[in-house]
């Protein structure tokens, strides 16, 4: 049985079926991400006043690396340009250029994911520390001369794990420069990194920047990981179109071009989500 309206528009909708289908799917995606964005903004505006970590319930503003986030934004914008050029190449009957632009798009997607995983690693090896005397710091932990790493989960410490290690009675902590009120990036009023030598019984709370640590990390990891899964899914589909799925070009070129358009629409949606996500999460 032949699937109808894969290359010609359906008379009642004026669109070929896959285009109508992708827009219905994207409408459901807008609701999914819209809910998460709303949750983020409500949590952000209702957070306590003050500078985190000194004020425990304040919003940890300025923890994300803006240059890296901007670079990733540029990578995704480039990938949107190349995916549309791939589609335009097919419209101009140039399959070799299509494949080249598709490969660049997939490369950009994988680069984005690589950079994002580097950022995740930075967060998973960064700590919040509260002492019994009420002082609070963020920074990096050194236990027995080692920085606990992300990939070895047995080394991701919180206070209970640290105390359970009977051979550990003291740690070193490289504290980040203190932030002044209203300055997100520790530039104004910034001091030098401080080295602290601490006994474990001086510590009231210690935890890495994991989702369990703070509402900010919970919502940040939820939204960015969901977005990352969309990037991965999109990259797999585009890679399929560029290589094994490209056989369709020989038998049904118009249907294949429409498939690329549908893939490109999904890819643009994923990139547009990031265009909103970047300023909301990194800058505000």
């Amino acid at each position: 049985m032949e699937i109808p309206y894969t290359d010609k528009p359906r008379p009642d909708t004026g669109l070929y079926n896959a285009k109508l289908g992708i827009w219905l799917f994207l409408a459901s995606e807008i609701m999914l991400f819209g809910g998460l964005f709303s949750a983020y903004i409500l949590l952000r505006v209702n957070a306590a006043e003050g500078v985190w970590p000194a004020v425990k319930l304040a919003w940890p503003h300025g923890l994300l690396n803006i240059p890296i986030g901007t670079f990733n934004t540029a990578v995704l914008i480039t990938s949107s340009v190349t995916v549309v050029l791939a589609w335009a190449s097919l419209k101009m009957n140039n399959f070799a250029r299509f494949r080249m632009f598709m490969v660049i798009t997939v490369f950009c997607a994988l680069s984005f994911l690589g950079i994002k995983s580097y950022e995740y690693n930075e967060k998973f090896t960064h700590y919040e520390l509260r002492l019994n005397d009420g002082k609070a710091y963020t920074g990096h932990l050194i236990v027995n001369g080692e920085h606990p790493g992300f990939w070895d989960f047995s080394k991701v410490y919180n206070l209970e794990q640290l105390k359970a290690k009977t051979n550990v009675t003291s740690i070193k902590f490289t504290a980040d420069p203190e932030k002044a009120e209203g300055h997100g990036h520790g530039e104004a009023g910034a001091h030098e990194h401080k080295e602290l030598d601490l006994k474990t019984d001086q510590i009231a709370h210690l935890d890495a920047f994991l989702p369990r640590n703070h509402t900010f990390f919970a919502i940040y990891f939820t939204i960015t990981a969901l977005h990352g899964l969309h990037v991965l899914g999109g990259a797999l589909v585009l890679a399929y179109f560029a290589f094994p799925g490209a056989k369709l070009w020989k038998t049904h070129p118009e249907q294949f071009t429409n498939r690329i358009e549908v893939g490109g629409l999904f890819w643009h949606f994923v990139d547009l989500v990031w265009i909103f996500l970047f300023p909301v999460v990194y800058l505000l």
Partner: protein
Amino acid sequence: MSLKAFHIVFVGASVLLMLGLAGFSFGEYRETGSPLSLLWSGLALVAASGLLVYGRYFLRKLKHISFL
């Protein structure tokens, strides 16, 4: 909406983002005096201009393709 129309929307959103980033970085520069923030603001303005030029080029190049 075709990929062409969605791409125009996307480029428009990217231009707005870059203008916003330029404004944000300039605000940081005024607060902190950091030359890096000023450089960042300038780069974002250049990126916004580049995207505008690209958007015009894209529209001219694909004028035979429908927006639907």
